[in-house]
Each structure stands twice: as structure tokens, then as C-alpha cells.
């Protein structure tokens, strides 16, 4: 999509943090530490600052450049720590960049948290005015939109009740309702829709789409890839503070899901948080696409392969070996289990040395999101190895049904094949 009239122009933006690595330090400095340091090494200020190895520089953002046009919704995705939140904080002016610049053509409102400044003791009515004002809305505007806000939140009966007595759903609805009625030219939204029930989330997404259609610009961060794919015109992938890719949502999300940087985790074989006799040991799991290349995740509807390398420490063949892979949602709930007991039968006899067990999953039917997996192996009924969890993978939104409509989290917890016919 070509950018018609850029509303947001970001050029070479960078944000550096200095991390102090010293004794288990609190986030703030105590004067005591400064004084004791001064007493311990009174001449330290004479030394050059480069000698001070305690300070580590860390670029949370580096060389970030992009443009967003009028009426465009830009999605921002990336792993935790990729710099998404820092970018939004810089663009919201909460913190200053270290280098580069951003030009915003128009009024900016940002929603980095739902209900910032809400006070539990105050009533719903009071909090609408307070929160609106904190978000930069003039009082006259709040008064004008008051009825609309109340209607959107559906809390009219509780307007004069302190919000500490609200259910968490009501609280979130009220908070989002205030923010939804800001009318900025540029709206910056962080992962705030993760809260609230499905129906309300739907309403919020509808509102955001409406905002974009009325010619406003939206910058939207979410882990929720299906939402990003549905709502955004373009998507930007951040990786370790840099822009890795920017373009069509489907393309960028696929790239994110398939080639995201491997997480620096302990190799399975070195992990000590395991149970079992150790006769067999899980050594490595490789996720492969159906064409055999390694991936970090899958797209709904893809054929997937898990290659599980198993170390046979006993150096002898085993009978009645069972291996299970338990798949858990990001919320820790068991979603499904793939097991040799169900699908493979007993592995007749394992090789006497290390071996690879390949699990094939035609047309992955998991709802988009993050998943973890546990590995479990028994030999003759005794637990040989058990890792909980052994690893993680992402499932990105995909066209499972071939209908152009992508199933998302709102649709439930799993996807099932179905058909309709008139009878």
C-alpha cells in the first residue's frame, strides 16, 4: 500500500538505556549508595568514565524509520523486548529518544494502559472526567460525549458507585470507553485489548476500525497476530530494537512466525529441571515446515513436523517405549496431546543408539497464539524423561478453510472442519 499523506514520519529513531550492573540494586538509587561510593573511592570522579565497567549501554531502539499515512493502521509486532513498547513511549513523548526524530502531523493520543489514573475511591462519573482529562481531553469535550461514553461502557446504573466496587469487566469497559472517545488525528495503542470479554473486545476492535476509516492514523501493538492481520493495513516487525520488515500483514506475520530469532534457551540436554530415570533423554526438538526447513512456528492450516532427537544413554535397545507431546496454551491450559499411545502404537524396538522420532501434523488446527509443549517418555511403564515445558512455538493466523476468513482467538479454543448444506 502506498503512503498517500504521511501523518507520522520517523527517521533514524534510537533510544539508549544505561543499565547499572551492581549488587542487587533497586530500580532507584539510594542516596546512601552514592555517599558510600563517594567515601569508598573518593577519587573515582577523576578517572575517565570509560573505566567504569558497571554501566552497560543498551539500545532498546536503533535506526527505526518508517512512515504511516492518513487513515492507515500500522501494526507493530515482535517478541518481548523487541522495542515495541519503547517505540510507543517515545512516540507518546513519555520518554525522549536518544537520537533521530519523529514528526507527527496532528494531535496525538496514546493509550498504553487501560484506565491510567483511575482512582478506586472515586465514582464512575468522576473517573470519566479525571481519566479523560489525563488523556488530554478538554472538559467541555468530555461533558459533550459523556452520555456516549456511558452508553458504550454500559455502566449507566453504576455511575455514582465508586469504581472499586465495579467488576473487573465493568472497570475495563469504562476505561476503554473514555479512551475510545478521544478524537486525535493519531492514535497510539498498546496491547490493551487483551483484557475484557470477547464481546467487548469485538466492540473495541470495531471502534478502532471506525477510527481508521474516519481518516485517523492508528499505531497498534499486539501479540495477537490474528487481530493485527484483521485490523492493520501494514505491519512492522521489530527485532532487537530494529525494524526487520515492514509490509503486507500476511507477509510480515508469516515472516515473524517462521523466522523469528531463535530464543536463547538452554539446550534440552543440559536442562536439570527434569524428572525420570534418564534411560532416554530428550536432546533436541526441531520444528519443520512440510518442505523440511526449520521454523519457529506455524501458520494455521500448515502441515507441521516435529523432529524429536532422543539420546539413548543406556546404549541398548528398548521395548515398549512411549513418547507424548502435550500442547499447552499461553494460559497454561492443555490444548491437546500427541502420543505414540494414540497414533504410533508401541515403538517396536528403539535403536541402541541415539535416534530421531518424527511427528507429522497435517493441517495444524490450533487457534493462533503462543503455545508451549511438554515432552514425556516412558520405557516399560517407567518414566524415563519428563520436561515441563520443553519449549514453545507460535501459531500465526492462516486461512485454514481456504475461504479468505482467518479463524482467530475469538472463535474459541480449537478449529474443527465442518460444512453446511441446505436440506
Amino acid at each position, binding site marked *: 500500500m502506498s503512503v498517500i499523506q504521511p501523518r507520522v514520519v520517523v527517521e533514524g529513531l534510537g533510544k539508549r538505556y544505561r543499565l547499572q550492573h551492581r549488587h542487587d540494586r533497586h530500580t532507584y*538509587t539510594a542516596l546512601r549508595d552514592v555517599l558510600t561510593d563517594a567515601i569508598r573511592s573518593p577519587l573515582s570522579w577523576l578517572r575517565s568514565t570509560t573505566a567504569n565497567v558497571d554501566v552497560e549501554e543498551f539500545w532498546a531502539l536503533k535506526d527505526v524509520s518508517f512512515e504511516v499515512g492518513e487513515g492507515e493502521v500500522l501494526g507493530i509486532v515482535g517478541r518481548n523486548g523487541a522495542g515495541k513498547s519503547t517505540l510507543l513511549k517515545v512516540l507518546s513523548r513519555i520518554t525522549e529518544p536518544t537520537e533521530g526524530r*519523529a514528526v507527527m502531523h496532528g494531535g496525538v493520543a496514546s493509550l498504553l494502559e487501560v484506565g491510567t489514573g483511575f482512582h478506586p475511591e472515586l465514582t464512575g462519573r468522576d473517573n470519566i472526567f479525571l481519566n479523560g482529562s489525563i488523556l488530554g481531553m478538554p472538559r467541555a469535550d468530555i461533558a459533550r460525549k459523556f452520555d456516549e461514553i456511558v452508553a458504550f461502557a454500559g455502566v449507566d446504573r453504576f455511575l455514582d458507585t465508586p469504581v472499586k466496587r465495579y467488576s473487573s469487566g465493568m472497570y475495563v469497559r469504562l476505561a476503554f470507553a473514555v479512551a475510545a472517545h478521544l478524537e486525535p488525528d493519531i492514535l497510539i495503542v498498546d496491547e490493551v485489548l487483551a483484557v475484557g470479554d470477547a464481546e467487548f473486545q469485538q466492540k473495541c476492535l470495531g471502534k478502532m476500525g471506525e477510527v481508521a476509516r474516519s481518516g485517523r492514523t492508528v499505531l497498534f501493538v499486539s501479540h495477537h497476530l490474528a487481530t493485527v492481520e484483521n485490523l492493520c493495513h501494514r505491519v512492522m516487525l521489530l527485532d532487537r530494537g530494529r525494524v526487520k520488515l515492514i509490509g503486507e500483514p500476511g507477509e510480515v506475520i508469516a515472516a515473524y512466525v517462521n523466522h523469528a530469532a531463535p530464543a536463547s534457551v538452554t539446550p534440552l540436554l543440559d536442562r536439570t529441571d527434569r524428572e525420570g530415570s534418564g534411560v532416554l533423554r530428550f536432546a533436541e526438538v526441531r520444528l519443520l515446515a512440510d518442505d523440511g526447513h526449520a521454523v519457529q512456528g506455524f501458520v494455521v492450516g500448515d502441515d507441521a513436523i516435529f523432529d524429536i532427537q532422543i539420546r539413548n544413554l543406556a546404549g541398548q535397545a528398548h521395548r515398549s517405549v512411549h513418547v507424548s507431546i502435550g500442547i499447552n496454551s499461553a494460559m497454561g491450559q492443555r490444548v491437546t496431546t500427541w502420543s505414540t499411545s494414540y497414533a504410533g502404537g508401541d515403538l517396536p524396538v528403539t535403536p541402541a543408539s541415539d535416534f530421531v522420532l518424527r511427528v507429522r501434523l497435517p493441517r495444524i488446527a490450533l487457534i493462533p497464539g503462543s503455545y508451549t509443549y511438554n515432552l514425556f517418555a516412558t520405557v516399560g511403564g517407567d518414566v524415563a524423561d519428563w520436561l515441563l515445558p520443553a519449549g514453545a512455538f507460535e501459531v500465526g493466523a492462516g486461512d485454514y478453510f481456504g475461504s479468505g476468513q482467518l479463524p482467530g482467538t475469538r472463535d474459541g479454543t480449537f478449529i474443527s472442519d465442518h460444512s453446511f448444506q441446505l436440506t
Partner: protein
Amino acid sequence: MKLIIEPGRSASQYWRELWHYRELLYFLAWRDLAVRYKQTVIGVAWALIRPALTMVVFVLFRRLMGAERSHVSDVLLVLSAVLPWQLFANALSESSTSLINNTNLLSKVYFPRLIIPGASVAAALVDFLITLGLLAVVMMWQGFAPGWTLAALPVLVVATLALSTGIGLFLAALNVQYRDFRYVVPFIIQIGLFVSPIAFASANVPERWKLLYSFNPLVGIIDGFRWSILGAQTPLDRRAVTMSLVITVLSVCYGVWYFRRMERRFADVI
């Protein structure tokens, strides 16, 4: 409307933005007051009880010490000093902890940060205006009519606010980085209560201590309040008043400068 974000840029439109966000100052002050009095049985009466009790204690103290009488009653002499003192102490203690009490605002929304301590001072001013009612009642009870000097009262109130704001801004910014200063303010207030002319009149301070004594900027301010409320025959030390004003102006300038300098790092540090 065009907004440019780059290093060191935040300064350029700051004061205009402060004006734009003036309603927020009102709402935050209102929130502080509403929350403070919402869950109390006697509510706003608390604003009156503290100065009233302080006054009673100091009047009794004067009687016990056999302090010499001035042209007005002890009650008026003490009350006219307790009121500005409480304004100063409340504004200072609230504003100096205002930033660390509003961490979520600092890390989640943008607005000129001066609004936060500013709102604390504004809330303290409202409490002060309520206590002026107490003063009026006591004056009627004593049958005391103020003179033309009362016209100077607003100026003195502004000076008190300015002094507490200046020191409060400095301490609020320091508190973000060094939480130790949380403990400094109650100490300042405790000491201040005894080295300021509240239980006594400045006229009673021995001449050789006068210079050192008037380095306390509250001396000039509180003496000014007494002069304004109790009438022109109350002695007023010009030197002390001048020093108060100079220190007040310096503290406001330094407080604002220091706050502005630290402000851009608040969200990163807090």
C-alpha cells in the same frame, strides 16, 4: 498542528502545553481533595481540626512559659502564624512526594510533569482557604477587626505558595532518583515548626541571633501574615521580609530549573 520529537526538543513548547493542560491541574487537585475527604467521617472538618489543635497547644505553651502579651490575644497571635505555616507544610510535603505517588501517570501518559506537584500545591491552597474561615470565626469571637493591611494577604499567600513550590519541585525531582528524600521532608517540617515564629513573636528573638534567624525564609513570610492580619502596629522587620522574598524567588527559579532538567528522565528512572 505539527509535533516534532527529537532529543532535547521537549523544552520548546513546554509552557504552551502547560497552559493546554491547565484543566488537568484542576482535576488532579480535585482528585486529591475528594479522595482525602471521601472516606472520613467528618470530612472537610479535618482541614480545620489540625490548625485548631496546633493553635491550642501553642497558646497553652505560651501561657505555661509566661510569654509576654502583645497588643492582641495569644489566640490570634498564634493562629495568624499557624495558618501560613500549615499552608507551607502541607504544600511542601504533598508536592515533594507527588511524583512517586503518581508513578503510573509518569510511565503511561504524557503531559507536562509540573502539573503533578502543581496540583498538590493547589490542593493545599484549598485547605488553606477553608482554614481562613476558622480565622474569621476566631476574629469575630475576639471582637477583632482587621485593618487596611489585610489587603496584602493575597500577596503573602502567593509568596508562601511560591516558596513551598520551589522547594517542593526540587525535592519531588530528587525523590524520583533518591527515595531518601521522602524522609527529609517530615524532618524539615518538624524543625521548621520550632525555628519559625509560631509560638513566639520575632520581636522576642535576641538581637544577636536576628541575622541567622532571618535566613529562615518563613520568618519574613509569617511575620508578614501577622502584620497583615493583626494590623500595622505589629512590628515588621524589613530585613527579614526582604530576605524571605529573595530566598523565595531563588528557590522557585532553582526548583523549576532543576525539575525541568530532571523531567525528561523521570519515566526512565522511576
